[in-house]
């Protein structure tokens, strides 16, 4: 039996999973999916920020387009920290594609004029 907190929404359900992958404690179906994923292949979405070349002292926020394996978080951060963009930026702009071959892109999350 494993116990952990669901991170899908602010409700934060306390999930229990038994050896046969039966999930209890979840309020919604997403909790069940999360529990199974957490035990088989835990993943996270990463948000960060990258430099804006043509602006002084300014970063623009970014996120991974999907979730990445938990074990790859710091490698992905290293890649993000190599990136920079030029303003103007638009939400959804792709800064880097298929990062580390993980099948996710790095997307802009802030409009800067």
């Amino acid at each position: 039996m494993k116990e952990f907190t669901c991170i899908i929404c602010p409700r934060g359900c306390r999930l229990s999973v038994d050896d046969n992958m039966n999930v209890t404690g979840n309020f919604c179906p997403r909790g069940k999916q999360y529990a199974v994923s957490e035990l088989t292949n835990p993943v996270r979405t990463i948000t960060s920020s990258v430099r804006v070349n043509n602006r002084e002292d300014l970063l623009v926020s970014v996120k991974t387009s999907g979730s990445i394996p938990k074990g790859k978080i710091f490698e992905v951060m290293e890649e993000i920290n190599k990136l920079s963009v030029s303003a103007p930026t638009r939400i959804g702009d792709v800064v880097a594609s298929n990062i580390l071959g993980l099948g996710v892109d790095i997307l802009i999350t802030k409009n800067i004029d």
Partner: protein
Amino acid sequence: MRTIDLLIIGGGSAGMAAAIQAKKEGIDDILIVERDENLGGILNQCIHNGFGLTEFKEELTGPEYLSRFVKQVEELKIPYMTNSMVIDMTKDKIVTISNKDKGVEIVQAKAIVMATGCYERGAGAIQIPGDRCAGIITAGTAQKYLNIHGYLCGKRIVILGSGDIGLIMARRLTLEGAKVICVSEIMPYSNGLNRNIAQCLNDYNIPLYLSRSVSKVIGKDRLEKVILSAVDEKMQFIPGTEMEIECDTLILSVGLIPYISLLDNIDCPASSTKGAKVNEHMETMIPGIFSCGNCLHVHDVVDFVTDEGRLAGHGAAMYLKGKLARGNKIVVTPKDGISYVVPQEINRDNQEDVTFKFRVRTPVKDVWLIIESNGQQVAKIMKPVLIPSEMVMVKLSKDKLDLIKDEVTLRLEAR
């Protein structure tokens, strides 16, 4: 002097929602005044995700969430001024606006929505004993340095206070290469969301110490170490429990307070939230001045701020049209285990449902929430778990409200 029907002070989530709502209800002469360079308020620096689950049924980052409202403000052609600060406001709604390029302008507003947000309690507020060295900053300041400007505030960091901003910053600083040694919380429970303890601390093996606080800061020029000591039930340090931790930065996440200094000079009563006292339309005790969002009471979720902004925008629109119910007042009082309730007053002639928003004083399990009026029960709702860090909302329909006489009380009762 220029006249403006609806002046909105603060262009964050609450202010934008209020403006959009009032515009949709036919108020055209609106001006939003925002002191920062851009609309959006604090969400500009909240680059993590988790916003919008109620409002949009999807998970957005702060900047993505705010951009949807900026877009509506633009599409509805609602005028706004940035880099502009309201420096004075009278009871008669004469407002002084200072802009770095245009100078000072004085305008006469017919209605005002205060949406000025909140500020962080700093080192002075919690009186940390020890040296007065550099390296002690609030979580929001560290967040702005890092997420907007790209400066890491330190390399070895202790975080005091386990509110959500502190937890979010623990993860963020770790991702950017700092060593977050621990989070220390004076209370026996965390004030942050469980999911943030899981995804911000547990994911990165950052320990959370409960019932423990900073008893001393040590450093000649820059912070060199902090002493963490356990506290007893009376929040007094227990001798012999000291932990000495070498660090260069102490980040404070020790509470937020509604920012309402503009109301100081106009005799506008406050409530136990430290924000203004309001009625069900988020109207303060000064007719035509409304308040919403974190300057009214500090919220946990931006979606609820947006909702409250709409309520204030609706109230202001009704006021400007002369349609706001005015009648005998029902006084709303929190009792037994409830620390505050918004609103604090309801107009007897109000024709709409009313949502009570409240917080409990301490974590409780299996309780009844009882709403009663002059000794008569109006509603009794079962609540399995209530914690201080989660605001609770209870909607009372118009027919239930009709049962209420001149006062209404919210209280908890053990099951």
